[in-house]
């Protein structure tokens, strides 16, 4: 089994259950969009999938091995995680920010070598940031910073990319570009799991959707069969209609009468 498997995940904090027995299997080459209303448990589930939060019950398996049993650095090399609204704390240059993504590949007390700097350059080019590489990261716009974080995540060439609302705060063009980039990564054989609020973009680009409501997985499967008006209504309490399919899909929704 090559990929990520969630087995009956439960997460509780202060007596409240945020995630209740969520289980699914996703494989490389898939782009799984995680959908759900605010507070449905998406971020918590994402953090458990990334191995950053320990489930109260159940476990996450990466290629059949429980995440807790995998060495930190090995896990860091194999899956990348981008939190919601990732920020930089110091005004370091963009290329240095991206190079931080290579640290799990670097033995202790070693500096980056030329081959690694070439990887940084490739990741910058892949995310259209080559011209920004010397600029302090705190002066980037929201869209540029999101791309820089994606480049940071991709530079180590992980099999699995887990992103929490990678489109948050992006304008329509950058949001479309961001989704297209994630879809291209999945197409190239990686597994991408991302929480998304834009249903139209999810319908167009995601290969699979997982829908959460109040901590429970209410639907999971290929996008065309799973992102249906009935499932959208169940997740968000809105009336939805879907026009077109594939790259032309458009999800329209209005409040329940």
């Amino acid at each position: 089994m090559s990929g990520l498997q969630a087995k009956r995940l439960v997460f509780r904090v202060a007596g409240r259950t945020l995630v209740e027995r969520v289980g699914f299997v996703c494989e490389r080459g898939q782009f799984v969009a995680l959908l759900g209303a605010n507070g449905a448990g998406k971020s918590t589930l994402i953090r458990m999938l990334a191995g950053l939060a320990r489930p109260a019950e159940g476990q996450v398996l990466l290629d059949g091995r429980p995440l807790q049993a995998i060495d930190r650095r090995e896990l860091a090399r194999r899956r990348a995680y981008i939190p919601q609204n990732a920020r930089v704390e110091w005004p370091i240059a963009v290329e240095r920010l991206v190079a931080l993504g290579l640290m799990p590949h670097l033995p202790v007390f070693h500096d980056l070598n030329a081959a690694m700097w070439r990887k940084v350059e490739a990741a910058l080019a892949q995310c259209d940031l080559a011209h920004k590489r010397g600029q302090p990261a705190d002066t980037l716009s929201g869209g540029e910073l999101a791309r820089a974080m994606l480049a940071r995540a991709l530079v180590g060439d992980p099999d699995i990319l887990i992103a929490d609302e990678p489109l948050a705060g992006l304008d329509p063009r950058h949001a479309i570009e961001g989704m297209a980039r994630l879809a291209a990564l999945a197409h190239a054989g990686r597994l991408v799991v991302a929480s998304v609020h834009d249903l139209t973009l999810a319908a167009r680009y995601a290969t699979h959707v997982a829908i959460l409501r109040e901590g429970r997985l209410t639907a999971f499967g290929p996008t065309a069969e799973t992102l249906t008006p009935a499932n959208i209504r169940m997740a968000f309490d809105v009336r939805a209609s879907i026009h077109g399919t594939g790259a032309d899909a458009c999800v329209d929704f209005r409040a329940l009468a």
Partner: protein
Amino acid sequence: MVRTRGYTYQTLCVLLLLLPAAFALSLAIGRVALPFSELLHGLAAPKPNLAWLILAELRIPRTVLALVVGATLGLGGAALQGLLRNPLAEPGLLGVSGGAALGAVIAIYFGLATAFVLAIPLLGIAGALAAGALTFLFGRSGTLTLILAGAAVSGLAGAGLSLALNFAPSPYAAYEITTWLLGSVAERDWAQIALCMPFILAGWLCLAFTPRGLDLLTLGEAQAESLGVNLSLLRAQVLAGVALSVGAATAMAGAIGFVGLVAPHLVRPFVGHQPSRILLPSALFGALLLLVTDIAIRVLPTSNELKLGVLTSLIGTPFFFWLVLHLRRLSP
């Protein structure tokens, strides 16, 4: 290929050139005016002689101590600013300086210092380690709790110091306590330095393992953790490193402010903002800063010797104001 390396190597070279110069100057200047030639002659002449005694028993220990304490404060400040991702962090923030001061003051208060010369540094180190343990115990769960626990421990140590002054058995004891608290590297002997060095070196060693984790914290705690950083281990390493090194330094020299806060800021414009690249330059600059300040004390014609901690604060404060105003402009 142009890299945004900053001027790390140039900065290190300049600092490594300035440090021996300051070291030589520090040996040449003191209360007893001795020409440099006489000091050199004293090294070659049969021992003991006056010049050699002044060098070996007064000026060299004083100079070495200023360098070690300055480097410790610069390193501790840089590491803490990196860990807390806050440019206002300084080595005293975690309560270890307060703990060291309280331990030393207890030694003075009960007259242990007169009975046993090493009582001040010994109790100072014990106080620093106790304070560090207390901060760790209450604050290990997160960065914010670490700061809050440090503030609480600092407050406790401050209350203890006030209590000692309040109940001081005589005005002379109170005077002795306040004088010690002002901070100085004068009149410390080799035995005291030898007692503190293992702790300081152990602290430096702890901090030597933190640069990568501090760098990754630039991405925030969640991403740092996803990149393999064990956050609780990193916090423990920095706290232990600061408690051992800054604690022992404070036990030797008293509370010396501003060096740990200012040194990292002063090197950032030259080496960039990446935490790992600031540690060594900040340590070297802290050493230089404290040694030059200590030389200035000996040169300034004051009736009572001006205390080191007083002068660092006097110089540090206006400089810090200037820095606050220009921080934006200086940042590359």
